[in-house]
């Protein structure tokens, strides 16, 4: 899932790939990783989308398809449900601080690495070091 998050993965297929029934697969996955496979995949996809929204100027629709969602509607709905704001709002909010810093003379690499939200969902809390 970590590698193929953008593919059209479905739970049946994932369960078959490890020779488990659908129900058993979901149960074992949850016991092992603390969340359902569906939720895990969704998180991977959203995290990737968040990074692309923050760090690129690509269209929201393009990003949505790129990370494995099949419609902009379900992407935006899921994004808002989990993060409490739309992809566009997230992009504006997270790009504002580093861009303001760069305009004020801070080197781009420093601004992008340090001036970014510190508590986003499921994200590694460690920051990039100098």
């Amino acid at each position, binding site marked *: 899932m970590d590698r193929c998050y953008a593919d059209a993965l479905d739970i049946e297929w994932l369960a078959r790939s490890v020779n488990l029934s659908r129900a058993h697969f979901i149960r074992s996955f949850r016991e092992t990783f603390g969340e359902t496979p569906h939720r895990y995949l969704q998180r991977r996809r959203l995290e990737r989308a968040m990074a692309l929204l923050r760090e690129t100027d690509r269209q929201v629709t393009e990003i949505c398809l790129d990370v494995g969602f099949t419609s902009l509607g379900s992407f935006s709905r899921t994004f808002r449900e989990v993060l409490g704001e739309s992809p566009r709002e997230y992009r504006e909010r997270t790009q504002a601080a580093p861009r303001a810093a760069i305009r004020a003379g801070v080197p781009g690499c420093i601004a992008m690495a340090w001036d970014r939200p510190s508590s986003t969902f499921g994200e590694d809390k460690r920051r990039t*070091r100098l």
Partner: protein
Amino acid sequence: MLTAITHNFIWVFDQDEALDFYVGKLGFEVHTDAQMEVMRWLTVNVPGEPDRELSLLVPQPPAVDADSVDEVRDFVARGLAATFIVSTDDCRGDYERLVAQGVEFTEEPTERFYGIDCGLRDPFGNHIRMTEPAPQPIEPPSPSSAAS
């Protein structure tokens, strides 16, 4: 092909105190003083050299992870952190001026074949060398001429 060193970093414990020292005493100019969300980004440059910034950086997150802050501060205070060498056109004059301002020197201006050289400390423990270079090209004395 690399083209320039644009930023060097030096650890300081208090940026206002650092400004007072580097700008108020040594004679650097403020290049950038920007309040970022997470920190104050403060750089200075030698007058006339705006393309080479010295960043006065506080060792705290996000520049340094919280667990390493004490270690870095300890290194700086003991004079073990990396610093820099500056050149001057009047080493003795600058020395007199800085001593009068209370700057701590680790070595008085000394005449050497490569110029007049001295050493000082910033308020945090960083060692800085200041040299008035001898006319170029510098010819290191050979062992025999040094003995005579």
